[in-house]
Structures are given as structure tokens and as C-alpha cells.
């Protein structure tokens, strides 16, 4: 490896000059001889040429990207759940391609080994009978799922996508700290971390020969596609749902790879076939990339408490109708105890030793190992044999002892359930601290995917970088940061993209059939957004009038207040909490379908929610509130505009639009019924025209406001986008294009109800419209919502 001399490094500006690795601990930037490793030089030269303000601005670009993209990590603390921003450590970890290649080859060997072990513990059990793996250990492994024993995977393979956590030890070699075979998270975070870091270092990233990640994902997606049974729909990503700490990432990677994001509830087993509930009935599916933990996948045969699974899934798997990536039960390999046996199993199954060692581990269920751990108990980390977290993740001090327990007593009482492990001293990598680079401990998460050409390692991944020098500080729950990992080649690297696949002809893919649950969420998103807008318009009119008269007892204000109360609003608050919770409901609905959403749309919605909360805390009744609400209305209109400008005209968009139309028509019918009666207060009709956003049109067409003129414009005028007839016609145009809208040339019951409603409205003379008729209309429109639900979401 080439390196610059000590003199040169001393010539560098202060950000590096003061950087001193710890005694006896390898460092990623500084080689063992004290010189800077060559791949780091361009980055350091770039950083050195920048002023502190320029560096701060660049780091800010990365943070801004992540905030705009809505990248978050759900953090479970004591009794609270919070979404925290993705903690980017801006300086990447840089590895030379030559070193990486050797590491990747070793990890591929390990992936092959894990597959072989998996095949054995769910198959012939030769490792038990040969005595290489203790039966008591496997029997006690909670992730070894008995209902899956003897079940051969349809694809021929158990493992398709795995991760490994690595650390560099004191001797400078890489060590595997743990295997992630169940449903590893983080690949999407690795992608986002890459995007953010490449923005921070935009000036040098392109010239730095950093291996790109897209080729790896493209190959994996090809594999998923290739495993499909002909005639089945697109590949799905089986998510653990909105409340999982990595849900954001699951939605992100599903969108990136073009997979349907499915929950267990979206799936149903018919006979032995797995199907997706869509708006067009049940559609077959044969490959699932699984991010849901095995135990939760089928409440009939696995954990009976699961509400996330698909009853009967195991029947489909046993019949070979569906490939799970990874196979159910793969979590068995993640336990700490396996680390004690994998070196021997590698010899046994592959006739070779492990190329990359794993952290030395002794299972105390064996006599000699138990004695060794007991004698060395002060030097070793003792932890549960069946735990699947790294000991350093469990506690900032790396201690795993239960309360009021000594290592001696623990070993005596529970030796069969314990392992001893070599304490890990991690290498350091530079992190940005107070304006200079400082060494911090780090681990690497590396991903491997099975592709049509065999296992491939993602050239990159992410590094967890501690906030302090304690090895335990790399656990994300204790506030570690995450850095990009750059694998740097000596010469220019290929630039693959998921959008351009070399060698394959361009083919337009039909959009997949919309899952019923996604349609349901889009529909309600439309309704919540429109309901919010209606509430805001009424509220603005209220506060505008209040600013003029300052008399809350005025009849007109009383009438509007009554309307607002029908939404459950408490007017003691200038911006009632009901508005904020309606926006929150929209955010929740949108969150469940984030894979179908543009980034801009999502950002606009989240921005609206936080603005509303802020305004809700500060605003004063009257003019202040009216103006603040105008800001919210503009933001909301911005969101609607983005959705309608940018959303692909697939079925999902239709459901969103239908939801908006229904809500708007319901609102209009209700408001009118309160504002047109003969006994309505003075100014009611003008206010109605204002909240209906039709002041100019009304003025042009009618001399003065009368109930007839208002009803004509707001109910019957099919050219006014605020009128009820307009909304009914818009709904009709969408519903006609939904699946099942006509059977044997007859309209569906939903289509018939809508046609009748529309005809009744279109043939109604304006002067015949009464408040009672409007109220009845309101309930008939609400009935359409139920019909949509029954037809498409049940």
C-alpha cells in the first residue's frame, strides 16, 4: 500500500495534524506505520482546503437531504417511542478495493457455510448425529422453528439476503461479530447514507473511484424476479408494518427496487396458493422478500399471538408455492452460540477453515469450554447463548450480567444457556468532533445477496461510529452515528443504475395491481386532506369575522361555530386540536403507503403537520388566526397540487381523488344546509360563497347573493370545481375505470348508486333546493363512501 510520509502528513492543516490513533488500536485512516492510508488522501485534501464555515455548510447539505427525505429511525426508549433523525457521521469510512475484495471473498465463503448449516438443521441433521453441533443447544434455540423442519425451500435455497457485522481487531484483521440471517435491516439506510454523503462531498465523490451500490441491488432484484413462478405478479416485500423501528427503510427499499410493500394482512392463502388482496380480487404472488420476523408470519402454526401474519402461510410454503427470502426459521443462525461452532462446521461441511474468523466464543454447555470461561471470566464477555444481539449492543459498558448476579454465580446456575466471548477492541475511524477529526470506535455492517451468479457482497454498507471511545457506544440505541463506507478503486468504476440495465431491451412494465389496503389508505388520505381543508376554510372565515366584530355572540359567528362543532372542534382554541389530529391522520395514512408516494409529497405533508402544531401553540384568535390559517391552506393546496401534478395516474391516484371528492361533496352539502335557510343570519350566504372559494365567479354571474344563486353555483354548476355536481361527475369518471365497474355491461352497485345520485342532483331546479334535501344528499354521498369500502377494501 502506498502511503505518504510522516512529514507530508505533518504538513496538513489542523484537522488531521492533531489526529492521534489510540495506542495499540488500529485506525482506518492512519496505517500501522503512522502514515495516512492512500485512499484517504483526496478526501483529506478536499476537507483541508475548506474553511470551517464551508465544511459546516457541506455537512448541512447531507443533513438537509436526510431531513427532506424523511429518513428516520424509530427509537424505543423507556416507555416512549420517538422518531429520531438518521444520525449521519459525515466523514465516510474508506477502504481500498484490494483489501475489500479479500474481505468480500471471505464473507461469501461464510454465506455459503451458513446456507449449508441452515440446510442441515432444517434437513438431515447430520451435524447433530456427527456430534459437531450439540442437540441440547439447537433444541433450546428459540429461533429454530420445529414446524419448518423437513420443509425444503421452493427455490432450492434458504438464504438470499444476509448481513454481517464486522470489527477490525487489535491485530489489524477483520473479525465477524455477528451474522444477520433472519431479516436483516439497513440496506436501505446504507443507500440513503450514501446519497447524503455523496452530497456532502459532491465535489470529489464522482472523481474518487468509489464503487456504486446500484449494481448490487440490481443483481438481487434480478434474482427475486427470476425465482417467480410464471403467471404470478410482482415480487413483494413483506413488511413488519408501520410500528417497526425500520419501517421507513422497508418502504424506501421497496420503492427503490419496485417491489409491492405488503403486510401479512394483505395476503391470503387459497388452497395452497399465496395471493394478494387487491382492488381487483385475489392475485397470485410467489416471491416475498421478508422483513417480518419468522415467528410472526403465520399465527396458525408459529406464534399464536401474532396479528401481523398470514394464516396458512406455512401450507403455501410446504407446498412449494412461495419462496421466502429468507426462509422462515433462518434466525436460528443468528444466536451467539453458533459463533462457537461455525469454525468447526466450516471444516466439517466445506473441508476448509474460515477465511474471516469470527469473534472467539465458547459455549459453556461443554465441560472444557465451561472451565475455560470460568477461569477467564474477568477477561471474557459472558452473555446468553441464544441472544441474537452483539454483546456490545446490549449495554454501553459491554456488560451483560443480570442484576444482582456475579459472573461466578451466573455460570454456575445457567451455564448451558451462556457463552463466553473474547472482548472486542474495535478499530477507530475519524469522526468530526468540534471542528477536527477525532478517532472513534466503529463496526461495519456488510450485506450479501444471492444473485443469479452466486453470492455478491454490497461494495459498501455502513459503519456505526461511537460518540465516545467506549466500544459499547457503537450501539445505535446509545446514540452512535452512522457513516457511509467507500470502497475505493485505483481506476474508474462502472456506474450502474437501476434505471438502465445493460443488455436488456427496454420494456414498459404495467403497474402492479393495487393491494386493497393501500387503496384504502389512499382513499382515506384523500378524505383527511380534504376534511382538513374544509375545516381550515371554515375556521378562517370564523376568525376573519371575529376580527371585524370581536363579538362571539353574533348570530353569524354562532352559526359557523355550530358547523365547526359538527367536526368536533372546540373553539376555545384558535386552532382546535381536531385540525391537528386530522392532519395527523392524513400523515398516518400516507405513512402506510410511503412506497407509493413522491418524496416531495411526503415532505409537504410532514411540513404541514409541523406547521400546524407550531401555529396551534402560538396563535391568537381573530386576525392573527385568520392569517396563520391562510398559511396552512396554502401549504395544504401545495400538497394537493404536488399529488395531482406528480402522482402516476394509476389506480392509487383514483382512490385518493375519489376520497377527496366524497369529502368535499359531503362538506359542501352540510355547510349549505346550515347557511341557506330563510332564518339564517345576515351574511351567511356571503360567508358560504367565501368558504366555497367562489367569490369572483358569483360576483360575475349574479347581482346579489340569494339562496338560489348560491345553490346554483355550489350544487348544480358542473363547471365549478367546488360544486357537488362537479365532484359527483369527477367520481363517476374515476369509478368507471376501476376494476369490476361493469359486469356483463351492467354497472356495479356502486356505479348504479352514483349514477342515480348524479341524475337526481343534475335534474334538481335550484329554487327547489331545501336544507332538508341537502342534508339527505349529504347522507347519500356518505353512503357512497361505504359502498367504495365494501366493494374494494373488504
Amino acid at each position: 500500500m502506498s502511503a505518504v510520509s510522516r512529514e507530508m502528513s505533518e504538513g496538513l492543516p489542523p484537522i488531521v495534524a492533531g489526529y492521534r490513533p489510540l495506542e495499540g488500536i488500529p485506525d482506518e485512516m492512519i496505517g500501522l506505520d503512522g502514515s495516512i492510508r492512500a485512499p484517504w488522501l483526496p478526501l483529506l485534501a478536499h476537507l483541508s482546503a475548506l474553511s470551517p464555515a464551508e465544511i459546516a455548510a457541506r455537512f448541512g447539505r447531507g443533513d438537509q437531504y436526510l431531513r427532506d427525505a424523511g429518513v428516520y429511525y424509530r427509537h424505543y426508549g423507556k416507555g416512549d417511542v420517538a422518531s429520531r433523525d438518521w444520525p449521519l457521521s459525515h466523514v465516510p469510512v474508506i477502504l481500498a478495493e484490494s483489501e475489500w475484495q479479500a474481505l468480500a471473498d471471505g464473507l461469501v465463503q461464510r454465506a455459503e457455510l451458513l446456507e449449508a448449516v441452515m440446510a442441515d438443521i432444517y434437513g438431515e441433521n447430520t451435524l447433530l448425529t456427527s456430534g459437531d453441533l450439540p442437540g441440547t443447544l439447537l433444541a433450546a434455540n428459540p429461533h429454530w422453528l420445529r414446524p419448518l423442519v423437513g420443509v425444503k425451500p421452493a427455490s432450492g435455497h434458504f438464504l438470499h439476503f444476509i448481513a454481517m457485522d464486522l470489527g477490525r481487531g487489535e491485530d489489524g484483521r477483520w473479525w465477524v461479530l455477528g451474522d444477520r440471517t433472519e431479516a436483516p435491516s439497513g440496506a436501505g439506510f446504507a443507500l440513503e447514507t450514501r446519497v447524503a454523503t455523496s452530497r456532502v462531498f459532491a465535489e470529489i465523490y464522482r472523481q474518487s473511484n468509489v464503487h456504486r451500490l446500484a449494481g448490487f441491488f440490481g443483481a438481487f432484484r434480478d434474482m427475486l424476479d427470476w425465482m417467480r413462478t410464471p403467471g404470478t405478479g410482482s415480487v413483494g416485500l413483506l413488511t413488519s408494518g408501520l410500528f417497526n423501528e425500520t419501517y421507513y427503510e422497508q418502504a424506501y427499499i421497496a420503492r427503490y427496487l419496485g417491489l409491492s410493500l405488503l403486510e401479512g394482512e394483505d395476503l391470503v392463502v387459497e388452497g395452497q396458493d399465496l395471493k394478494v388482496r387487491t382492488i381487483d380480487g385475489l392475485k397470485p404472488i410467489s416471491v416475498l422478500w421478508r422483513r417480518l420476523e419468522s415467528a410472526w408470519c403465520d399465527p396458525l402454526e408459529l406464534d399464536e399471538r401474532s396479528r401481523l401474519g398470514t394464516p396458512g402461510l406455512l401450507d403455501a410454503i410446504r407446498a412449494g408455492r412461495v419462496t421466502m427470502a429468507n426462509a422462515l426459521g433462518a434466525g436460528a443462525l443468528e444466536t451467539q452460540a453458533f459463533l462457537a461452532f461455525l469454525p468447526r462446521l466450516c471444516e466439517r461441511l466445506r473441508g476448509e477453515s474460515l477465511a474471516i474468523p469470527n469473534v472467539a466464543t465458547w459455549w459453556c454447555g461443554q465441560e472444557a469450554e465451561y472451565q475455560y470461561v470460568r477461569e477467564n471470566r474477568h477477561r471474557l464477555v459472558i452473555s446468553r447463548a441464544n441472544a441474537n444481539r452483539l454483546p456490545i449492543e446490549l449495554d454501553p459498558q459491554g456488560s451483560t450480567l443480570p442484576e444482582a448476579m456475579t459472573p461466578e454465580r451466573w455460570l454456575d446456575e445457567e451455564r448451558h444457556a451462556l457463552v463466553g466471548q473474547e472482548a472486542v477492541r474495535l478499530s477507530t475511524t475519524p469522526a468530526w468532533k468540534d471542528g477536527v477529526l477525532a478517532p472513534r470506535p466503529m463496526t461495519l455492517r456488510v450485506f450479501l445477496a444471492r444473485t443469479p451468479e452466486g453470492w455478491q457482497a454490497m461494495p459498501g454498507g455502513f459503519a456505526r461510529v461511537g460518540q465516545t471511545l467506549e466500544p459499547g457506544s457503537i450501539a445505535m440505541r446509545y446514540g452512535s452515528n452512522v457513516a457511509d463506507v467507500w470502497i475505493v478503486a485505483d481506476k474508474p468504476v462502472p456506474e450502474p443504475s437501476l434505471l438502465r440495465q445493460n443488455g436488456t431491451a427496454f420494456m414498459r412494465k404495467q403497474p402492479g395491481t393495487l393491494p386493497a389496503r393501500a387503496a384504502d389508505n389512499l382513499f382515506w388520505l384523500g378524505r383527511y386532506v380534504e376534511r382538513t381543508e374544509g375545516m381550515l376554510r371554515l375556521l378562517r372565515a370564523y376568525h376573519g369575522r371575529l376580527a371585524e366584530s370581536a363579538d362571539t355572540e353574533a348570530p353569524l359567528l354562532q352559526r359557523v361555530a355550530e358547523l365547526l362543532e359538527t367536526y368536533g372542534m372546540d373553539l376555545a382554541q384558535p386552532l382546535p386540536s381536531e385540525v391537528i389530529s386530522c392532519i395527523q391522520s392524513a400523515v398516518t395514512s400516507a405513512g402506510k403507503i410511503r412506497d407509493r408516494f413522491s418524496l416531495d409529497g411526503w415532505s409537504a405533508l410532514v411540513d404541514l403537520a409541523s406547521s400546524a402544531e407550531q401555529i396551534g401553540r402560538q396563535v391568537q384568535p381573530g386576525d392573527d388566526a385568520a392569517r396563520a390559517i391562510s398559511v396552512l391552506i396554502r401549504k395544504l393546496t401545495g400538497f394537493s397540487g404536488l399529488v395531482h401534478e406528480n402522482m402516476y395516474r394509476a389506480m392509487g391516484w383514483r382512490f385518493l381523488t375519489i376520497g377527496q371528492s366524497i369529502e368535499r361533496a359531503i362538506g359542501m352539502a352540510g355547510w349549505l344546509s346550515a347557511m341557506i335557510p330563510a332564518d339564517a343570519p345576515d351574511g351567511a350566504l356571503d360567508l358560504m360563497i367565501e368558504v366555497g372559494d367562489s367569490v369572483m365567479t358569483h360576483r360575475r354571474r349574479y347581482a346579489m347573493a340569494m339562496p338560489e344563486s348560491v345553490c346554483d353555483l355550489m350544487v348544480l354548476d358542473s363547471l365549478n370545481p367546488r360544486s357537488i355536481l362537479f365532484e359527483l361527475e369527477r367520481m363517476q369518471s374515476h369509478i368507471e375505470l376501476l376494476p369490476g365497474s361493469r359486469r356483463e355491461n351492467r354497472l356495479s352497485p356502486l356505479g348504479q348508486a352514483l349514477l342515480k345520485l348524479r341524475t337526481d342532483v343534475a335534474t334538481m331546479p335550484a329554487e327547489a333546493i331545501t336544507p332538508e334535501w341537502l342534508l339527505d344528499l349529504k347522507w347519500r354521498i356518505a353512503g357512497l363512501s361505504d359502498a367504495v369500502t365494501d366493494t374494494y377494501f373488504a
Partner: protein
Amino acid sequence: MQYEITLRLGYAYAHPVAQARHLLRVQPRTVPGMQRLVAAQLDIEPGQPERAVRTDFFGNIVHSLHFHEDHAEIDLRLLAYVERQSALPVLDVAPTLDRMRDELTRRSELGPDSPLHFLGPSPRIPDFVPFRDFAMAALNPGMSPVEAMRSIGAALSAHMEFDDAATDVDTPPLAAFEAGRGVCQDYSQIMIASLRAIGIPAGYVSGFLRTLPPPGEERLPGADAMHAWVRIWCGNSVGWLEYDPTNAMAVADDHILVGYGRDYADVAPIRGVSRTAGGQTGHHTVDVIPVG
């Protein structure tokens, strides 16, 4: 002894159910040297659900049912003829408890009857440490697992009172133990937890108990519904024994075996998932009549 067994099991739903899948573990199995299933028939109302039969990991017979049509109730009727052999008297040549652990660690295979499955935590018995003191109090130094089984069974009998209103199928064993009341499921899971707490492999057995006692004897609790008891592994030389903690007796030819598992979750007579809102009520009756 040959028996005719009739089981009726079902639910009535508050709202009709559109889709439902159920797994049934109700049909007695054949175990060489113990019992033989002569014939069985399972009738299901309503209509024609999709049906399949297979054996599970532990060798139990599983019927899977899938209802596609709307239904407001389901009703299952099993008629089975089983020949039950008398159990041989136990010759207690078991090792002491201390030596049994060595025998266990030397075992490597994990077939369905391997004792290794029945040593550790299981879905319904996640933690047996709270039962350790209770179990230890019933032990004397040098006891064999067979003696330990009887002694813990007797202690449990003294501690518990049979009460079919105190618990339900989801009551955790510790709650039933602390209340000192329960039914066969509670007795069995408490005994399993106590045995595992001292390192004796113990499993859950579901089955039937003959309804009418032989003349002059009292009708035993647990005969009106499916019954449950315990199997205990007593070392390589003795192997598995079965014990009925609800009646504090060794299992003999009045007990008809349906399934083996680690706890209730592995052998629940019916496990189902329906897409429904609202509640349900269940019925469950059993008749076990000796025939010839």
C-alpha cells in the same frame, strides 16, 4: 380396552365470518405398544370446507380446514374407535437426577420423541424459574426422576383445587399456580414447569379420559371435555412415563392419547384465525365409552 370416542366442538359467532382457517388436533394417533387407532371420521358443518390431513413435528395428526363461505357457526364432530393397551407397571431403574443431566447432554438426535425438546422454555411456559422452589421442596436427595414425578404430583395435588371457573385456556401457568385453582391444562402446565425447573424433561399430552368409571368408582374430573396430562422423561433406561396430575395418578388404560407437545400451544384441539369482528361462544363435549 377398546373405546368409542365422540367429540363435538364448535363456535357460534356474533357476526358471520367470511374467511376462516383452523387447525384441529383432535384425532387419536397410533403409538406402537400403547394404542391403535382403529377408525376415525370427522364431520364438519357447515358445508364443504377445504380439508387436508398431515402429521406435525411431534407426529400428531393435524386436520387443516379452510372455510371460504360466510358462516355464522361451525360444528365439528369426531367419531373414533381406539384400542388402548394397558400400560406395563413401571420398573424404576432410572438414574438419579444428577446423573440424568449427563445422559441428556450426551444425546444428540432431535427426533419428535427426543427429551431435549422438553427441557427448555416453550410458548406457554416461557419461564419456569418461579416453580423451582416448589419443586425443590418436594425432592429428597438421591431421588430418581420417577420418584420425583410422584412426589411433585402429590405436592401439586395438595396445593391445587380443581375449579373449572377459575381459569381459561389462556391463563398462564404461574397465575393458576398462585391462585391454587384450575383445570387439567393448568395442572399439567404447572407440573411441566416444575419438572423443567429441576432439569427433568416434561411434555404436555392432550387426549381423552373415559367418561363412565368402572362400577363402584367415581367419575373422574376432566372426563367431560378433552383432557390433558404430562409425560416425563426418566432417563435412557426408563424413557417416557405419563402421569395425570389432575387426578394424581399414573396414566393407564383409561387415557386415550391425541397429541404430544411442549405445552398447550403445540396441541391445542383447535387453533383458528377468522376475519371477524365481534365475539363468539364455544361448545365442547366428549363421550368416551368402552366397547367390548
